[in-house]
């Protein structure tokens, strides 16, 4: 099992009001699966993804990553885990606008202190995998939204993580481009044996997922 959450709870305090983002969510995610987390906006999908991805800390409950209790990790260990074991794909791609596609993919490797030549070679290979071998030197503003999301996926794969977390990866895309991204994520799971967790509204992802969790008002309501 790569990820397990136990009674995971996240409460936000906004002034006097208390908002329950996630309420005692327990789930288990096996390795090499493609898991879809579905639900309407504000249901708690992103909160769950942030907690699994160690970007945020739970108010209560625990996240086990590879069997290790992440609540016992210090900030440096959490950061190292994010850098080497988890790849992130964001809805709005979050590419660095001043860098080329190639440089954007190299960035996580640079932080992981991968040698420069290896960075360049691996980044080019990854961009080839996502079908952007002819766009290496283009900056984000010179790419289509679909291409930007492909670059983001290549970046997520840069340090060869075991787990890919994608938050609404097709949210900004038209249906044709969205389908291409869904196929790409599905390929990652099938061909590269990655564990992929996708928070989405997109039914197409749910169709190819190994397992689907439905989230509503911060709780798991459906488990398929």
């Amino acid at each position, binding site marked *: 099992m790569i990820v397990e959450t136990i009674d995971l709870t996240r409460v936000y305090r906004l002034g006097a009001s208390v908002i329950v983002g996630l309420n005692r969510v327990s789930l288990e995610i096996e390795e090499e699966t493609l898991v879809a987390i579905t639900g309407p906006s504000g249901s708690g999908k*992103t*909160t769950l993804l*942030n907690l699994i*991805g160690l*970007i*945020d800390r739970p108010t209560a409950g625990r996240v086990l990553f590879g069997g290790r209790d992440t609540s016992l990790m210090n*900030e*440096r260990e959490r*950061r*190292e*885990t*994010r*850098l*080497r074991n*988890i*790849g*992130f794909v*964001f*809805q*709005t791609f*979050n590419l*660095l*606008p*001043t*860098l080329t596609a190639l*440089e954007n993919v190299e*960035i*996580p490797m640079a*932080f*992981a202190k991968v040698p420069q030549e290896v960075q360049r070679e691996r980044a080019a290979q990854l961009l080839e995998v996502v079908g952007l071998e002819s766009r290496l030197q283009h900056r984000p503003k010179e790419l289509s939204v679909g291409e930007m999301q492909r670059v983001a996926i290549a*970046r997520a794969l840069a340090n060869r993580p075991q787990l890919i977390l994608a938050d609404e990866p097709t949210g900004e895309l038209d249906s044709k481009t969205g389908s291409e991204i869904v196929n790409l994520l599905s390929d990652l799971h099938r061909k590269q044996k990655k564990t992929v967790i996708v928070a989405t509204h997109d039914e197409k992802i749910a169709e190819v997922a190994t397992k689907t969790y439905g989230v509503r008002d911060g709780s798991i309501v459906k488990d398929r």
Partner: protein
Amino acid sequence: MCLRNLFRRRTRTSLCVFGVALGVALITAVGATTTRYVSLIKEMNVFYRGDVVVVPRGSIFVQAFSFGGFLHESALDEVKRVEGIRNAVPMLFVLGSPTHEGVIQLVPSNVTVGIPAGDWSVLVGSTPLKPGGSWPSANTSEREVVIGASLSDVYGLNVGSEIEVNKYKLRIVGVLRYTSAFLARTIIMPLKTAQEIYGFETMVSMMVVEPQEGIEREDLANRIETQVLGVRALTDEERNEIVEPMFRDIELWSLGITSAVFLMSAVLVMMVAVMNVSERRRELATLDAIGAPKSSIVRIVATETGLIGLLGGLLGIPIGAFATLLLVCFYTKVPLSLILGETFILVPPAMMLKTMMVTVALSCIAGLIPAIAFGRKNIAELLRLEH
């Protein structure tokens, strides 16, 4: 990457760099000018070391010379009668404006010194003359003078050249080697010649008194002041006491101006860093999310602000150096083309390097503050806000 980030906001970055450059230019110009003047005055401290200087009461004595009053030559005899004196040499200092071929006016910062022939070493110590030169003849009708190295270089004057002072033609018989900025700008002539051409017959500016062996300078100075009316006798310590407060004031003002300008530049850089960090919250939060070490994020921001400092320094130091040259031109009336060669004397490379290093270091520190503040924010919330 950092340069590319900076120049995403070209106008903002350029204005900030320009602001820092102006600050650095001001610091360079103020620093160079004050350092120059302080070192020039300190340099004069070597004159009359171990001797007692007698000046008119009420005059102002700044290291090498006194101004604001004269002594009658008869005072020399009175001073010489004081017990414990080996020798007393009178000198006349005149801040003159001689002309050369009716074209160039030497400026008040150039000093004409009249000394009894043969007593030259009282002023110049062991400073030698350049080859081919000799000391002026004791015969005052010869109207011979020795000039400092800078006057020679700046006005192209050499042994055999003539200068005109108050309609008197003077012949240059020697040029001093460069040993001090003060001597480099002096015209040295026999006392009688100086008194005649400036119309100060029987008057002198001061006397340099050499004590006999074993005589305490302090005691001798006290005796002179008691026995000769209307004079002050200054020992080394007293002369230093006169100028020390001046050094302190000059250095304090310079430090104050420099600190204020550095602070303003740092605040300017920090404002830009705060704006940059604020605008790029999502990018920095993304780097944080994908596992970039906090130190890398801090380094990116600090490098960007350091680059602003570096660019500001690279632009500001030459502007400051040029402003210093213009200031020197303005005050000495020496043409810029002649001063250009003295750029690295007026603004020493060590000072440029120090200014550059402080500017870059302060700029980096200015970037650290917003970067560290960013590091304390919750990335999940930042990423969510951006949605």
